[in-house]
């Protein structure tokens, strides 16, 4: 079947024609102002490069201790996984699972899945299980909370300074960098990849049909 030249706003269902230069500039719904297209969609190289950097930073952030407490010579330090383990052993298994998923599992899955689709798409190939991987990204994205964890680390550090001497460790800075990189990476809307993949699959079945008369989504620079 032919692809229609239409989009429906995901927040108000207004039927609109695709903007002329979809994905090059931020586009909003003229009815409810929902963000329809993000400009970052064309910068596949940038997103892919940042995802690689974020993945490496992620490993450093998870592998090293975050902070060390020094209380009159007695020290105590922890990695994120170590902290989750302590919580688990305290009988807070459910909370431990929630923290593990939101700060370790889901961000990792998102980065790996993004690289899995971005790398082949950049060289013009649609990888196997493309739909499934993109939907996985959409599923895990709202639950990845590295930036919230970063604020949590800072709050903990300030809280601890009244109790003991706090020594920052490698993972603290790694989490800081990771927060910044992920902020850019999550601006990328996986939906754009379906449109890009449509162009890559060169079959006549995927040609777009134009619809006259329906308002075109207006483009705004932000």
């Amino acid at each position: 079947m032919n692809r229609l030249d239409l989009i429906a706003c995901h927040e108000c269902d207004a039927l609109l024609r695709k903007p002329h230069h979809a994905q090059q500039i931020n586009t909003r719904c003229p009815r409810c102002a929902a963000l329809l297209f993000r400009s970052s969609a064309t910068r596949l190289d940038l997103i892919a490069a940042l995802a690689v950097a974020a993945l490496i930073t992620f490993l450093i952030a998870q592998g090293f201790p975050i902070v060390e407490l020094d209380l009159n010579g007695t020290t105590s330090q922890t990695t994120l996984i170590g902290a989750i383990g302590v919580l688990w052993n305290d009988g807070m298994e459910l909370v431990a699972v929630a923290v593990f998923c939101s700060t370790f599992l889901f961000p990792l899955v998102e980065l790996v899945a993004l690289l899995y689709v971005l790398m082949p798409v950049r060289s013009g190939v649609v990888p196997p299980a493309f739909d499934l991987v993109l939907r996985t990204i959409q599923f895990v994205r709202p639950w990845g909370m590295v930036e919230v964890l970063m604020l949590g680390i800072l709050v903990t550090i300030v809280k601890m300074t009244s109790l003991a001497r706090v020594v920052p460790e490698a993972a603290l800075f790694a989490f800081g960098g990771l927060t910044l990189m992920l902020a850019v990476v999550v601006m990328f809307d996986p939906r754009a990849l379906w449109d890009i993949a449509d162009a890559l699959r060169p079959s006549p079945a995927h040609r777009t049909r134009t619809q006259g008369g329906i308002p075109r989504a207006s483009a705004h620079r932000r």
Partner: protein
Amino acid sequence: MSYLTAARAGFIACHACGNVEVRAAPRRARQHCSRCGAALRQRQANSISRTWALLIAAALLYIPANLLPVLHTSSLFGDQDDTIMSGVVYFWVSGDWPLAIIVFVASILVPMLKLTVLALLAITVQRRTPWRPLERTRLYRLVERIGRWSMLDVFVITLTVALVRFKSFAVITAGWGALAFAAVVVLTMLASMQFDPRLIWDAVHDESGADTADSAPRRPPDSGPSS
């Protein structure tokens, strides 16, 4: 300016990939997206009842989340239980008022705001009021955006529990309030995901032929780029 919605025009949009296609005739039949294979739904299934169910569960758990201790400190100077609010008060009296404000906003204000806003949205959608759809959509977007920040206290608890392990001086363990609080955050996030903002707009009466809800595509006037 009135807009034709995909539903009224007889189209259906894929929630995953955004592809728009013609809705197949029988309404009950399962239709799958021709591009990505996701199951197509005109609107989120049972959106309002699911939102209510998750919202009520979250509201009930909000009580133990605030009453039960989240941290238990046992030190040389005796034992102490801390709830979320007493943590905020502690920061405030010890002079760390920026920190007190951050924790207060993330752990108390945001969950309350989420519960009230989602209840308001669910009630107005149920009553099909066409009242201020744009503002209500903005409220929904706000809830979607800030919801995650309530996890802040859960992360602070996790790190505190792991760091303060000085066997002879002081040991801090997590309390049941932490579990209830984490559950509130997860449930309210699920509730806002279940809520379908398109239902807000379904109640908006388009002046040009709102009564003709047939599936024949109509042609609304072209809208120029607006700011």
